[in-house]
């Protein structure tokens, strides 16, 4: 089983503590690596008028791997050649669209998700880097993930557009926890660090959680591009949760989570009425 750690902070990089590193390495003894990124929204979108304060976010990724799909270890965090994405994956994609992936499943899922984001179209202001593209990109990713059958927890960062996506599979088979502290940082980790007072919570499994680093602290400047009601404040960061789709281009009973959720939803609706959907 692999280990994932990702921290976001407005002050400085927040690496994992010694204890956290030890626990993550216990899960994934075959390899470990870390990546540090600084995202500056002004550099990403020079056409946008600069705000008074530099709104930089410091991200740290730390991954450990237990290799079970091949004798060759795929080191994580994964990064594409163009340096646009950083990806941490703790999971098994048994099938994608009903087909077993050829080769390593981490690579196959990385391709699936980056292709989906690349194909996401938004014709509003700013193109796909604009604020308005944030919500569609999150829903696009949730759709892409629902084509996978298997357990997972993941973190994906789009360096160019400044968006972080993370979540677990709908059945919650892999752990991913979140800690919001008062120190302007958000920590996402497979395991917790042993500090009982640290305010850790398990991540909800209803969908994909997303943070747009261009938005942080500037909720009032959304100019109507995003409905503020969709966002939740986790510490200093605004988080959107895009639910896994309950309908899709599939038949009932198809072998991925969309098929499963469709089945569940249809059967519940026929018995207890559509208002029950809010329970989900």
């Amino acid at each position, binding site marked *: *089983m692999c280990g994932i750690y990702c921290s976001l902070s407005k002050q400085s990089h927040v690496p994992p503590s010694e204890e956290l590193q030890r*626990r993550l390495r*216990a*899960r*994934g*003894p075959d390899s470990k690596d870390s990546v540090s990124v600084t995202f500056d929204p002004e550099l990403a979108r020079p056409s946008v008028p600069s705000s008074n304060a530099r709104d930089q976010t410091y991200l740290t990724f730390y991954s450990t791997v*237990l*290799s*079970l*799909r*091949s*004798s060759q270890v795929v080191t994580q965090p994964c990064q594409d050649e163009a340096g646009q994405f950083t990806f941490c994956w703790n999971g*098994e994609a*048994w*099938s994608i669209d009903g087909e*077993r992936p050829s080769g390593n499943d981490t690579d196959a899922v990385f391709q699936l998700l980056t292709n989906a984001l690349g194909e996401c179209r938004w014709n509003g202001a700013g193109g796909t880097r604009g604020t308005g593209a944030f919500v569609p990109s999150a829903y696009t990713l949730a759709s892409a993930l629902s084509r996978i*059958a*298997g*357990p997972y927890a993941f973190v994906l960062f789009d360096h160019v557009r400044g968006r972080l996506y993370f979540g*677990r599979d*709908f*059945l*919650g*088979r*892999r*752990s*991913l*926890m979140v800690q919001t502290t008062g120190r302007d940082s958000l920590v996402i980790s*497979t*395991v*917790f660090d*042993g500090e*009982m007072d640290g305010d*850790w*919570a*398990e991540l*909800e*499994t*209803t969908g994909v959680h997303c943070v747009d680093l261009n938005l942080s602290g500037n909720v009032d400047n959304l100019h109507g591009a995003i409905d503020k009601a969709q966002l939740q404040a986790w510490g200093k960061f605004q988080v959107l949760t895009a639910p896994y789709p309950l309908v899709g281009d599939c038949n*009932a*009973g*198809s*072998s*991925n*989570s969309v*098929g*499963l959720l469709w*089945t*569940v939803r249809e*059967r*519940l609706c026929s*018995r*207890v009425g559509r208002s029950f959907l809010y*329970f*989900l």
Partner: protein
Amino acid sequence: MASLETRLRDSLSYRVLNIPSLSSNINDSSGKPPNDKLAILFSGGLDCTVLARLAHDLLPSEEPIDLLNVAFENPRLQRNKRESTKEGNAYELCPDRITGRTSYTELTRVCPSRSWSFVTIDIPYSETQQHRETVISLMHPHNTEMDLSICNALYFAARGKGTIAISGKAAPYTTSARVLLSGLGADELFAGYTRHATAFKRGGFESLLSELELDVIRLGKRNLGRDDRVMSQWAREVRYPYLDEALLSWALNTPVPEKCGFEQPGFEPSVPGDADESATLDPDKKVLRCLAWKLGMKEVAKEKKRAVSAEQVMLPELQDTDLERRYSLELGLQRWKQAKRKARIF
């Protein structure tokens, strides 16, 4: 039942085939070639035994499979039982150990070509105490006594350190299998819980169906993240064949009578051969029992559903009021005791 078998085989084929081996074929201290591929969390119950039986069909016959069976020392209970039964080894009195051995014996008889290792993991009370803080830390933010009890069982099972019998003698053995199979999910799918029977009695199939569907939805809000943290820290990966998406979809679409066998004349899943005896199988998880029967595992098919007594794996100190004070209980004390009785382990 044919559909269940097909889908369960498909689900297992993803999860047990092509596990890479990292060993260099040096025999361990027990003299057996190391198994670094597959182990099963094995209480001997219907769920995990069916998995073991089907895994046997899928894997090449020279690959060994470890069956991990945990028993805890509970001095208070076991002293009383020892006096009444004159049994020397207290761990052998645990219900999971008894069922485990019975099912293991049946597996070796039905599948003699496979090298099965029944790993008895006996945990003395002192060792439970030694690891207590670690387990509590791993399962955080879950923090109830029931969580601790279940997580102890999972933690020590996943550690996989116990003994196996070689030529009748017990030898120390630690499994090096990196993949563990768990039978979790079968109860949700096939109405194994007592409250499913209660729902059926109260409101018929409509009521039962609602219970089942809620269970599947609630899986995401439950404890699998906790279980992942507790078990994976031994560098092993747990896989849940009953939680396969295709199998779950099929199960939710299948008419409930076919799955459960709760008193519906004319809906008996057909079993070749000795139909009379198979008709007497317990109604809960009937389709799984019929599958076990068809695969030759008749003893486990007939196994009675044990009222899972929490005392099997729970610790004597649960009577300790200091602990009750230290750990916040989401349920009130009365409801906590009720939940304790209904705790399901594997």
